[in-house]
């Protein structure tokens, strides 16, 4: 994990010197966080998560001069990732693929190798809406506060809390025996 000072130095090298080496170090530092975020949104689709994560970093590189440092770089990166996911969803809906893709992922993804608890958690997460799943991922798995989730998703804090509250009730009910 990069310290704030190290991160700022790398960002300065990227912005001033267009240093690919510095940007590579930033990618390495945030790769697993961003990939995990997408894995949870896409219900474990490795290939899709990998693609979306790559797109996120490419967009971050192209827009890095627009990063003003008003929020943490991590928050800014997650915002790009979230927008990337929604761009993907919009394209999918336009192509009329619907939710069958995610259902297929749940079935095809080495289901036999998963424990009962993992299957229960995945089924429970699939029952959430896209927005609820995103908010749950950011709050419970990425441990981000409501304020940052609101910055990332562009939703007002009240809406984030509302999504969380409904998702929590649904998850608690479905995962009663596991919680």
């Amino acid at each position, binding site marked *: 994990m990069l310290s704030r000072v190290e991160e700022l130095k790398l960002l300065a090298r990227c912005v*001033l*010197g*267009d*240093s*690919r*080496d510095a*940007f*590579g170090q930033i*990618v*390495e530092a945030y*790769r*697993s*966080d961003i*990939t*995990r975020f997408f*894995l*949870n949104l896409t219900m*474990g689709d490795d290939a899709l*998560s*990998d693609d979306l*994560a*790559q797109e996120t*970093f*490419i967009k971050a*590189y*192209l827009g890095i001069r627009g990063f003003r440092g008003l929020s943490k770089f991590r928050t800014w990166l997650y915002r790009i990732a979230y927008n990337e996911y929604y761009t993907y969803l919009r394209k999918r809906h336009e192509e009329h693929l619907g939710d069958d893709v995610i259902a297929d992922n749940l079935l095809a993804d080495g289901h036999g190798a998963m*424990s009962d*608890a*993992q299957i*229960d*958690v*995945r089924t429970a*997460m699939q029952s959430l809406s896209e927005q609820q799943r995103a908010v*749950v*991922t950011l*709050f*419970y*798995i990425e*441990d981000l506060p*409501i304020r940052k989730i609101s910055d990332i998703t562009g939703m007002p804090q009240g809406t984030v*809390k509302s999504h*969380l509250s409904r998702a*929590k009730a649904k*998850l*608690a009910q479905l*995962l009663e025996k*596991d*919680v």
Partner: protein
Amino acid sequence: MKRDEIDDRLGALLKEHTPQAADSNEWFTRKVLNRLPPKPKRSYTWLTVATYIVCFAVCIMVWLWFFLSLTPGIILVKDVVVAAILVAVTVALLWYVLRSMLRSSEAWW
């Protein structure tokens, strides 16, 4: 929104049983870097370097002229003003050159 016991238990459960990214993926960073747009070629680098050299040469000659034109033991207001201007121009030139070198450091090395 304060976390309660259910939040903590849900959080622990989700972290334990949701997909995790692989600890290392040596190809991921390489793939990202390969997909970045190519760096713009700086075909005018030799011209830039020549310009910097000429500017520095002129700067040094002006400094030499300034020191040679000083009256020993006497410092006039004019001398102070000229010195201040020369310092400002030299610092600005150095800063501009360093900034350009930092931007093109990967192209140089």
